[in-house]
């Protein structure tokens, strides 16, 4: 596993050294989305590893996929290169390394914001400012609705979380009772 990560990191470094100036935060979000899609549908891409299939056919499929995500053209070059090198199975790892490196180099933190209702632009702006103020980093985010929070907001990155929700309060209460019950 360590070897895969190391190889993936080398590809990511080479990719960013070449295309970092062309890459926008929106591209970063698209690359993340493609990586997630790839991880969820790994089996779909097994044929990329089969040498018997024509490279042109493989390119056609990749084109169609990347078009769906509105991915930049330079990303396709990276993915085709990996397929040509017989390393199609490395694609999600390479994309992950690209994201991590991009965040590292550009002082970015990516958050997933979850709320119980659709947040307005202003509300999202306020949350973004709060997170930027607390972390001292540029914030990129996507957001989703999760009614299991009951009420409130949850902001989570790979390494940080901020939550103020009813479900958290209930969970804290549950833990409190559980620990009291266990000690009595």
């Amino acid at each position, binding site marked *: 596993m360590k070897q895969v990560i190391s190889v993936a990191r080398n590809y990511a470094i080479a990719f960013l050294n070449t295309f970092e100036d062309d890459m926008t935060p929106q591209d970063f979000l698209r690359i993340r989305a493609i990586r997630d899609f790839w991880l969820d549908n790994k089996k779909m891409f097994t044929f990329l590893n089969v040498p018997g299939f024509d490279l042109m056919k493989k390119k056609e499929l990749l084109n169609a996929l990347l078009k769906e995500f509105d991915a930049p053209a330079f990303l396709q070059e990276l993915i085709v290169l990996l397929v040509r090198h017989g390393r199609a199975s490395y694609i999600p790892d390479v994309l992950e390394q690209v994201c991590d490196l991009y965040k590292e180099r550009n002082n970015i933190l990516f958050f997933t914001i979850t709320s119980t209702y659709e947040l307005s632009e202003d509300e999202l702006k306020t949350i973004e400012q709060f997170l930027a103020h607390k972390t001292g980093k540029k914030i990129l985010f996507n957001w989703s609705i999760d009614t299991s929070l009951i009420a409130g907001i949850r902001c989570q990155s790979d*390494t*940080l*979380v901020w939550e*103020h929700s*009813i479900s958290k309060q209930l969970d804290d*209460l549950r833990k*409190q009772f559980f*620990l009291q019950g*266990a000690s*009595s």
Partner: protein
Amino acid sequence: MKIKSSDLVSLFEKSLVGVPQENLDEIGIVVQVGDGICQVYGLTNAEYGELIKFDGGNEGIVLSLDEETVAVFLLHGSIVVEEKEIAKRTGGVYKTMVGDQLLGRVINALGKPLDGLGEIKADEYRQVEAPVPQIIERSPVNQSLETGIMVVDALVPIGRGQRELIIGNRGTGKTAIAIDSILHQKGKDVICIYVSIGKRQANIARLVRMLEQNGALDYSIIISAEASEAVLNQYLAPYVGCTIGEYFRDQGKDVLIVYDDLSNHAVAFREMSLLLRRSPGREAYPGDVFYLHSRLLERAGKLLNGGSITALPIVQVQGDDVTAYIPTNLISITDGQIVLDTKLFNSGVRPAVNVELSVSRVGGSAQTKAIKKMTRALRLELAQYHELLAFSQFGTELDEVSQKHLARGALAVEILKQPQYVTYSFVDQALILFLLKEDYLDKLAKKDVSAFAAQFVSYAKSVYPNVYETIFQEEDVSDETVKQLHKMAKEFTKLFVPPSSANQSSS
């Protein structure tokens, strides 16, 4: 515990009006769980020994920091931790409760009461991995800590703040020495802490009952990490005990702490290290197993504020081999050792202390003068006895001097025998040792020696209470007192009726 619905509502309301947290929590994701350990991805700023809280309610301690992940040992075996669960940093190391309410209680390494006597209110919480006291804060060991066991107090005396290892084979009376020492502290304003590591529940229950029956539980605290508990609890238990001891020590009190036993503790640490995939060294222990015990035992000592922690670590050896890895480590860390011998134990010498191998490196300066005066030649006499005993076993005909040495040594061995749960004050010990030193026991039959000594002590207490009190107050035996003791001994020798002859006459 029953929870009223009104309590629940008020608690919930209280938590709702709470202000949102100001800062973001640092988190990691559980990527692997098993064997009481989990690997957490993230937690990039986590520190060694930091307490980690899991979303599911479990807690753990960081014990290894790798490039991508940290290894967290779990504290609660009963709470499930799942893959992809979120783990949060707390920013602080693991703390244990300390306070006066712990006295008389039995708790586990996490501070949970095991005696069913209800919750314990902590006075404060302290880090279990506390720094050892600085040199400047320490005071020399110069005050005796009586164990009430004559062979120990006479030949391997223990001072307050000393670390004296008790070492021996399985079933040679290691725990008995420690327990007798605890029982003897009754009324002496010494707080006793007994840390049980990897022992059976039944043993602990028996110990608690025994302490309770002897009125020793009131000044004692028992910390139990049973053999069936998570390995982390067994690892933590001695540190928790020491932290509780430090609380009392900082108040200027004297503390006696027994670690029973550190060989189990080392085994628990070995298990943890192997699970963490650290390189095994000698006997598969990790390289830092010495530091495991040195940092624990260095926390014992006497401080200038008057408080002290006296540590009695126990270690079990296999086949009387004191040169094994963990025993030699502990021998080098501690200020002396009480070695218990299987052969002595089996031949009826109890406590089975091997006086030739046992030593107290600092206790001599803390020994009561009264005892010191009475035992000057005792160690030498016993050494000569054991040497000659080996000769006599070959059937060699011995000269008169050697035979005298043998007879005297046999008397000394006899007088140092002591039943379990019976302890002597230092005055009692001084009186008994006086009889041995001044040859008042020489003409007695071996089986009458103990009875003579015990009755002499009672005689002195009841007929000459002023002499008894003088020794107690002065902690010394002056020339004047020696004269009186001679007078008392002569009187008593005339009065004494040996139990053996009394039995014969009655039959």
